[in-house]
């Protein structure tokens, strides 16, 4: 295997640094929120992971289209990497959200549009892995995966719109889940922690994507080697 390129080594190093700084900013630097108290600090990471999670899903759908057009396996590796990394980040988002929701809404979970859509989106991408697992032919696996990310990427926003209809009687929950409210009331120190969190997770996301793409290339090599051995 080729050694890690220098840029990736730098990115690895940078990821660790920015994660440390983001943690410091969120836990120490940012002032304690007046109403919600300490638990509000979870919000900086919650938004950061949610952002890269959604970014990855959008990138995966785009990579899916690119694969179907070009039939280039590199797009497939990109797509798998994006879905895999994003599924993990999105799961972290849901868990962090629950931790915040327990004291704020007095429950771990409500069937608010955002929460429900997040759960369904996560299930779509878990189904994506199950689909891929059931197919042996790499070329077919890539095609089906691309089609499914495309379907999932289109379906999730419509799900959100539909679920909003069910909950139109609970404006308070939606308002509180919105985040914009808090953003408007953020002090400048909070804003630093918030935007640095977004930046830090973007860096970490790129780093992990890169590693996962390299891993994908290795997997493919192993698969080919196995084929030659069995022949």
């Amino acid at each position, binding site marked *: 295997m080729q050694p890690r390129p220098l840029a990736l080594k730098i990115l690895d190093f940078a990821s660790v640094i920015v994660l440390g700084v983001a943690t410091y900013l969120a836990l120490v630097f940012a002032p304690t929120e007046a109403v919600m108290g300490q638990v509000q600090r979870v919000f900086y990471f919650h938004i950061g992971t949610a952002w890269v999670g959604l970014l990855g899903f959008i990138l995966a759908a785009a990579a899916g289209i690119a694969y*179907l057009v070009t039939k280039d396996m590199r797009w497939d590796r990109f797509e798998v990497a994006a879905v895999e990394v994003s599924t993990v980040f999105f799961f972290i988002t849901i868990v962090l959200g629950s931790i915040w929701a327990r004291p704020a809404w007095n429950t771990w979970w409500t069937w608010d549009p955002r929460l429900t859509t997040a759960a*369904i*989106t996560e*299930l*779509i991408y878990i*189904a994506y892995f*199950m*689909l891929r*697992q*059931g*197919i*042996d032919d790499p070329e*077919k696996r890539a*095609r*089906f995966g*691309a*089609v*499914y990310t*495309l*379907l*999932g990427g*289109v*379906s999730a926003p*419509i*799900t959100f*719109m*539909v*679920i909003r*209809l*069910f909950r139109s009687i609970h404006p308070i929950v939606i308002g509180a889940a919105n985040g914009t409210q808090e953003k408007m009331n953020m002090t400048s120190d909070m804003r630093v922690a918030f935007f640095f969190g977004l930046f830090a997770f973007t860096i970490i996301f790129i780093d992990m994507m890169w590693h996962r793409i390299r891993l994908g290339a290795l997997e493919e090599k192993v698969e080919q080697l196995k084929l030659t051995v069995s022949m």
Partner: protein
Amino acid sequence: MANKSESKKQKAESLHPSFFKATLAIIQKDLSAEFRSFELISAMLVFSLLVIIIFNFALELDIKVRQSVTSGVLWTTFAFAGTLGLNRSMSVEKDRGCMDGLLLAPVDRSVIYFGKAISNLIFMLIVEGIVLPVYSVLYNVNLFRFDLLGVILLGSIGYAAVGTLLSTMSAQTRTREVLLPILLFPVAMPVLLASVKASNGLLAGAEFAEVLTPINLLIVYDVIFIAIAFMVFDFVVEE
């Protein structure tokens, strides 16, 4: 001379049938195969009735509960019975090698999609057409209203559109039947939720204008997903 060119033209037409004719041929094939054995419709039907009976006891469908859950029970039943039908209709093609025959036909691949999707839709509608009166009689609610039937038609169209595409995919995987509901339910969630929302409103006596938003979303979903399926079906059957 004129006769000869005419027969040539006919021959060319029979070799390259129009999109519409070819779709019709596939639907006809599915329907006549089904009406000889009734294995798909009867399975879906019996399954639907069993699901309703289970709901009857699980939810204790007395008059008060019934009002709020009827649409939920119906749509859950349709969705489950739908997966049963979708699975069967695709695995039959796969097992008996029919799919290869269809793929060899000199027609556009999307013809196969539309043919299969429409015959799946017809099977769903037949089952719904029997379940609805049975439910009406059993629970003494009138489900035969044009607005409600319209919602059911729109929901079934969306479900069959996505379901046909995904069942074509799942039939080619190792886990097959198990995989279809896992793939289909999260992607078809907007259809199910919007249908439940709209039928619930209608059954609770809401005006048509009040449920227009979920119905619009249903139409949007149907159009978008038929378009996507039309575009990507080629990739799903490619060998």
